[in-house]
């Protein structure tokens, strides 16, 4: 940038001072941004801890579960049954106290909630209450990590394919505003009011139960093929129905809204000027419509990708897809707080990271976003 400003000496001196202060400002901005985002993550995670524990009520449930388990176990012991009732009660109380101490339930919830927070933020996700990972581990980290690839394969692929397809069709329709295809997409957009799993059920009925050409669900056939290429093909084959369901439920509304978005931006004065200047229609689309709207497109894509990470609990359940969404679904049903909190923490960190990256990308892509308050020399 500085190379151009060689015309007058006053401008030059201003210029020389600027790069340094820009870096300083960038650094300060980055630090401030990171701190704010971290505070957001802390608040979000702590709220999740409170909610996942039902404000401490889950402890009560767990205490009574422990008492019940111990009572049943002791009931089966003939020696225990021979004891007088007060003695039996004492034995039970003693064993419950040991178990509660082992699990940390003897401390008040408020204290433990901050312990949870510390562990969560340092990614020390701990052990689950009841659930085990597919390989049999009780480590929350492993429970989540082992399911991550399945979710990423399905939702990542669909998200990227859908996003590219949506933008392409939307641009095409904005060019052919009012054509029959345009009107078709607008007319079909209410289809997106139903979620993907809803279409999933119908698609399974049609293609799996009736036509018998696609599988009911799952990620691979049983037994899985040995050959890696055939394994990949088999996964792709299992992905057809879920991707169809997702496409059906989202493509019409997103094409509709992007097409409207592009239409609004293509009636900007500078687009008309570009046309008057004789810029090639493709170049108008690239430089005068897509380029100024790039920040919005990137944001929408990034937020979509974060959404993907968690999977969709009901969607994965319908298609029997062994992904994170289903783990989360099970964890909620089993009150498995560490798993819920673990998933949320990772999600919160990913969200914060994405927002941080978006801020930086914005500053690069959009010259109007000037770093640190916006006063330029």
């Amino acid at each position, binding site marked *: 940038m500085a190379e151009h400003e060689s015309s007058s000496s006053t401008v030059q001196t201003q210029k020389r001072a600027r790069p340094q202060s820009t870096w300083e400002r960038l650094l300060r901005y980055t630090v401030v941004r990171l701190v704010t985002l971290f505070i957001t993550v802390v608040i979000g995670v702590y709220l999740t801890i409170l909610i996942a524990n039902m404000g401490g009520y889950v402890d009560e449930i767990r205490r009574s579960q422990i008492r019940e388990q111990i009572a049943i176990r002791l009931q089966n012991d003939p020696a225990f049954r021979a004891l007088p009732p007060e003695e039996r009660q004492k034995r039970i109380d003693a064993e419950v106290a040991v178990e509660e101490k082992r699990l940390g339930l003897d401390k008040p919830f408020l204290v433990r909630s901050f312990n949870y927070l510390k562990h969560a933020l340092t990614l020390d996700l701990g052990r689950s209450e009841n659930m085990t990972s597919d390989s049999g581990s009780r480590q929350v980290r492993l429970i989540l990590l082992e399911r991550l690839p399945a979710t990423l394969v399905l939702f990542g692929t669909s998200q990227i394919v859908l996003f590219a397809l949506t933008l392409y069709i939307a641009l095409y329709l904005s060019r052919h505003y009012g054509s029959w295809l345009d009107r078709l997409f607008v007319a079909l957009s209410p289809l997106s009011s139903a979620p993907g799993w809803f279409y999933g059920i119908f698609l399974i009925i049609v293609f799996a139960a009736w036509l018998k050409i696609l599988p009911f669900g799952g990620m691979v056939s049983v037994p899985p093929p040995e050959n890696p290429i055939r394994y990949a093909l088999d996964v792709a084959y299992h992905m057809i129905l879920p991707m169809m369901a997702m496409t059906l439920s989202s493509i019409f509304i997103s094409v509709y809204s992007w097409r409207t978005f592009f239409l609004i931006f293509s009636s900007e004065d500078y687009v008309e000027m570009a046309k008057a200047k004789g810029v090639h229609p493709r170049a108008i689309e690239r430089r005068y419509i897509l*380029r100024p709207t790039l920040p919005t497109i990137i944001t929408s894509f990034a937020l979509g990708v974060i959404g993907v990470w968690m999977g969709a609990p009901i969607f994965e359940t319908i298609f029997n897809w062994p992904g994170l969404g289903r783990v989360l679904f099970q964890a909620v049903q089993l009150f498995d707080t560490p798993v819920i909190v673990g998933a949320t923490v990772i999600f919160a960190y990913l969200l914060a990271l994405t927002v941080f990256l978006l801020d930086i990308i914005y500053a690069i*892509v959009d010259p109007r976003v000037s770093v640190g308050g916006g006063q330029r020399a």
Partner: protein
Amino acid sequence: MSAQSSTSAQPVLKTEDLVLYFRTTKGVVQAVDHVDFELDEGRAVVVIGESGCGKTSFAKAVLRLLPRNVDTYTGRVYLDGEDIMELDDEEFRLRIRWAKMSLVPQAAMNALNPVLRVSDQVAEPLLIHDRQVTKEEAFERAREMFGYVGVPESFLHRYPFELSGGMRQRVAIAMALITRPRLIILDEPTSALDVLTQANIMNVLKKIKWETGTSYMLITHDVATSSELADDVAVMYAGQMVENSDAESFFSEPLHPYAKMLMAAVPKLRGDEELEFIPGQPPSLLNPPSGCRFADRCPFRFEKCDEDPPLFLVGDRKVKCWLFEKEAQGVYGTQPAVATGD
């Protein structure tokens, strides 16, 4: 400067029976209705008229910058004698757009792409229309044009949001000049600016006109400011061209009753007569009256006004009013002519 030359030289711009109708939910809007018009080389015409009279639509019809809801777009537009309505879109884009005709838009504030550097946008037409030009040469020309319109060169590589309104307007003018077009259409180039900046821009335009001999079509409703620049005046009313005269005669004595009343409504520096206004409203362009469109508001109305008047030639001036039927030397253009003087 005399109007005599206009008959011999070929006009830069000539329209015949130009029609531009828009489709709306309420019906068809007759924004430009059978306009015959010509502009001679090196002259500046000021197109005046009240808001919504079709001035901007006329410019858009000439530039072929059509919105999506066009209903009818017919007629002839000659640029240097060539009928440009015959060209297909791609030819029009390559040979006419900015190569021969450029535009300074109404709201120059938004006329620049916010995410591209000003230099790229000013140099862009040159790179499109002149294959031989390198990027450096194009930037050099842009720098030259900046000097010409009075924007400091240090602003060349800035973004539009870093420029003030007056500067942006001057950048838009620089952009319009860079390919040395035959005709520049200025659509209210100063209406959003303060008086000082307005005067400044008008001076820039005058200088350019003297130095380059470019023809101007200046669309405005600011009669006072534009009178400095005008060689010719065209008055539009309700989608039609009602008078087309040289500036000198027009400002001393407008012919058309509407033009007379329009001029009476312009404040003057000296003299304490009260400003007049025109009673009533212009007719709706959705369903305009079949006769003269000004008849309802016209103090000189007579029976003949129920018929649509042609453009009468009065000397070198053209006026669309039955009052001049007697003294007219003839009828101009290809109006759906109601027979005159049989």
